[in-house]
C-alpha cells in the first residue's frame, strides 16, 4: 500500500502546502481525502507479501456494480476527493470501466492500482476515456526470472512492461510500485532505472510490511540491516539525481526502526478502505484483529456514520485506549502507538504497544528474531491464494 493521505486544511505558510492533519484529539474526525476501494480479492498473481487478509472474500460476497456505484456517489457527497481502485486485482472485475466512469461523473479523482497482467490495450484505452487519472503498476523485480517467481505467475513481468508502455502512450501518468524484500533488494538500482526508462512519473519503493501473508513469509522476505541501509542510501541518491523527472516515495520496514510508524496516520484519523464485501475498515489489514465488528455499506448506516460512530473506528481512536508504555509516552500523539494490526499479530492484543517501538517490552526479542531470519537460508515462499496458501516447491516452481 501506498502512503496515507493527510486530511485537514493546511498550514498556509507554504503556497503549495500538502494538506496536513493538525487537529487535536478532541475534535471530530473529518472525512478522509482519499479512500481505498478493494473491489475484489480475486487476483491471478500469488505474491507472498499480499496486503489482503489471509481470509479472502470470495467473489460471491463482492458488492454488485450498482452497490459500488452507490458507494462512489456517497463518497463524493461526503467530501472524499480521491478513490484508489485496488484489490486483489481490480481489472478482474468486468465492470471496472463502468465504475471508473461513474467515479469520474461524480467528480472523484481516480487511481488504478493494478498488477496489469489482465489488461489489454483496448481496455486501458476505455479506462482512459472513462476519466482514469492515474495508473500504478506493481513490479516484483527487474527481470522475469525473479519477478515471475515472486508473483507466482509466468510471463507476468513481460506483460507489465508492455502495459506500462501503453499507459504512457495513452498519456496516462504512471507510478511504478516496487515492493522490496531480501530477495529483490539487490535489484533496486535497476528498478530505479527501469522506472526512468518506462517514463514513469513516480516510483514507490515500498519495503514489505509484515502482516497477514507477509508475516507468514517473513523468514523468506526480511532484509538484513545492511541491505536496508544500502536501500536508503540508493533512494536518497536517486531522489536528488532525478528531481523533477521521477518522484520517489519510500517506505521502510518498521522492524528496524526505533520508533513505530504512525500507521494509517493513526487509527480512524485519516483513512478508511472498503473491502470487496463492503466492509468499511480502518486499514486493509484490520480484519486480522479478532473481536472487532466492522460494519458494511450494506448495513442501514451511512458511510459517514460508520466512520464517525462505529465501535470499530472508535475503539483505538485518540489515546484513551492506551496502556503503558504508550499511555504516558511523550510520543503518544506523534505515532499513536504504531500499528494496531501488528500489535495484535505479535502480542495478541491490539491495545499493546506495537513491538516495532523500542519502548515495547517485546521489541528486542522481535528485532533479534528478524535479524536471525534475515541471515537465514529460508527462501521458499508460501504463495497467496484462496486455499490458504501453497508452499513453493523446492526447485522454485
Amino acid at each position, binding site marked *: 500500500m*501506498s*502512503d496515507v*493521505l*493527510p486530511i*485537514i*486544511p*493546511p498550514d*498556509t505558510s*507554504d*503556497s*503549495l*502546502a*500538502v*494538506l496536513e492533519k493538525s487537529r487535536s484529539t478532541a475534535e471530530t474526525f*473529518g*472525512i478522509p*481525502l*482519499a479512500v481505498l476501494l478493494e473491489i475484489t480479492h480475486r487476483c491471478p498473481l500469488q505474491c507472498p507479501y499480499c496486503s489482503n487478509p489471509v481470509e479472502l472474500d470470495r467473489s460471491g460476497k463482492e458488492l454488485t456494480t450498482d452497490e459500488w456505484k452507490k458507494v462512489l456517489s456517497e463518497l463524493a457527497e*461526503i*467530501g472524499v*476527493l*480521491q478513490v484508489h481502485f485496488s484489490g486483489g486485482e481490480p481489472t478482474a472485475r468486468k465492470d471496472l470501466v463502468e465504475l471508473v466512469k461513474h467515479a469520474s461523473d461524480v*467528480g472523484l*479523482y481516480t*487511481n488504478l492500482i493494478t498488477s496489469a497482467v489482465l489488461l489489454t490495450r483496448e481496455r486501458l484505452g476505455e479506462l482512459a476515456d472513462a476519466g482514469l*487519472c*492515474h495508473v*500504478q503498476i506493481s513490479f516484483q523485480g527487474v527481470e522475469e526470472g525473479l519477478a515471475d517467481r515472486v508473483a507466482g505467475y509466468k510471463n507476468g513481468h513481460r506483460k507489465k512492461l508492455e502495459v506500462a508502455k501503453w499507459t*504512457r*502512450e495513452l*498519456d*496516462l*501518468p504512471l*507510478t511504478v510500485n516496487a515492493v522490496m524484500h531480501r530477495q529483490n533488494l539487490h535489484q533496486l538500482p535497476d528498478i530505479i532505472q527501469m522506472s526512468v526508462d518506462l*517514463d514513469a*512519473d*513516480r516510483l514507490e519503493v515500498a519495503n514489505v510490511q509484515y502482516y497477514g501473508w507477509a508475516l507468514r513469509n517473513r523468514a523468506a522476505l526480511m532484509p538484513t540491516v545492511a541491505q536496508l541501509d544500502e536501500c536508503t542510501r540508493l533512494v536518497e541518491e536517486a531522489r536528488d539525481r532525478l*528531481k*523533477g*523527472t*521521477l*518522484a520517489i*516515495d519510500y517506505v521502510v520496514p518498521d522492524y528496524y526502526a526505533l520508533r513505530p510508524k504512525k500507521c494509517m496516520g493513526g487509527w480512524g484519523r485519516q483513512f478508511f478502505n472498503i473491502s470487496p464485501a463492503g466492509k468499511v475498515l480502518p486499514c486493509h489489514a484490520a480484519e486480522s484483529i479478532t473481536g472487532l465488528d466492522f460494519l458494511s455499506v450494506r448495513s442501514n448506516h451511512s458511510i459517514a456514520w460508520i466512520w464517525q460512530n462505529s465501535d470499530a473506528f472508535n475503539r483505538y481512536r485518540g489515546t484513551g485506549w492506551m496502556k503503558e508504555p504508550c499511555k504516558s509516552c511523550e510520543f503518544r500523539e506523534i505515532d499513536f502507538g504504531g500499528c494496531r494490526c501488528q500489535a495484535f499479530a505479535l502480542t495478541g492484543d491490539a491495545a499493546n504497544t506495537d513491538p516495532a517501538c523500542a519502548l515495547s517490552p517485546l521489541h528486542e526479542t522481535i528485532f533479534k528474531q528478524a535479524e536471525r531470519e534475515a541471515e537465514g537460508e529460508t527462501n521458499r515462499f508460501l504463495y497467496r491464494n484462496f486455499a490458504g496458501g501453497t508452499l513453493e516447491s523446492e526447485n522454485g516452481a
Partner: protein
Amino acid sequence: MAGPRNISVSEASRPVLPRHAKLKYDETRKVWVILAPERVLAPDEIAVEVLQLCNGQRSVGDVSDQLAAKYAAPREAILADVIVMLQDLADKGFLTEIREKTP
C-alpha cells in the same frame, strides 16, 4: 505523450497542469486543492489565481502582467514569486509546459 519533465520555469515558459494534477474547489472543506497521485495539495489564493491563468498558451510573463495590472503591484516582484511557486510545483512533478515543436 505527456508534456516534458524536468522543467526550468522562466518568463517565457508556457506552463499548464498535467492530466494527473487537477485544480478543484473542495466544497466540503471550502478550500482549493490540487489533486495528484497520492497527494492533495492546498494552493494559497495567489497560487490558485496563477494556476487558473496557466493554460499552456499564456507565458509566465503574460500571467505576471495580468496580476501586476490587477493588483497594481510591481511586475518584477510578482514575476519572481510566480516563478518560485511554479518551479516548486514542477519539481514536485505536478507541472508541465507547452513547447514549440522542433522540426
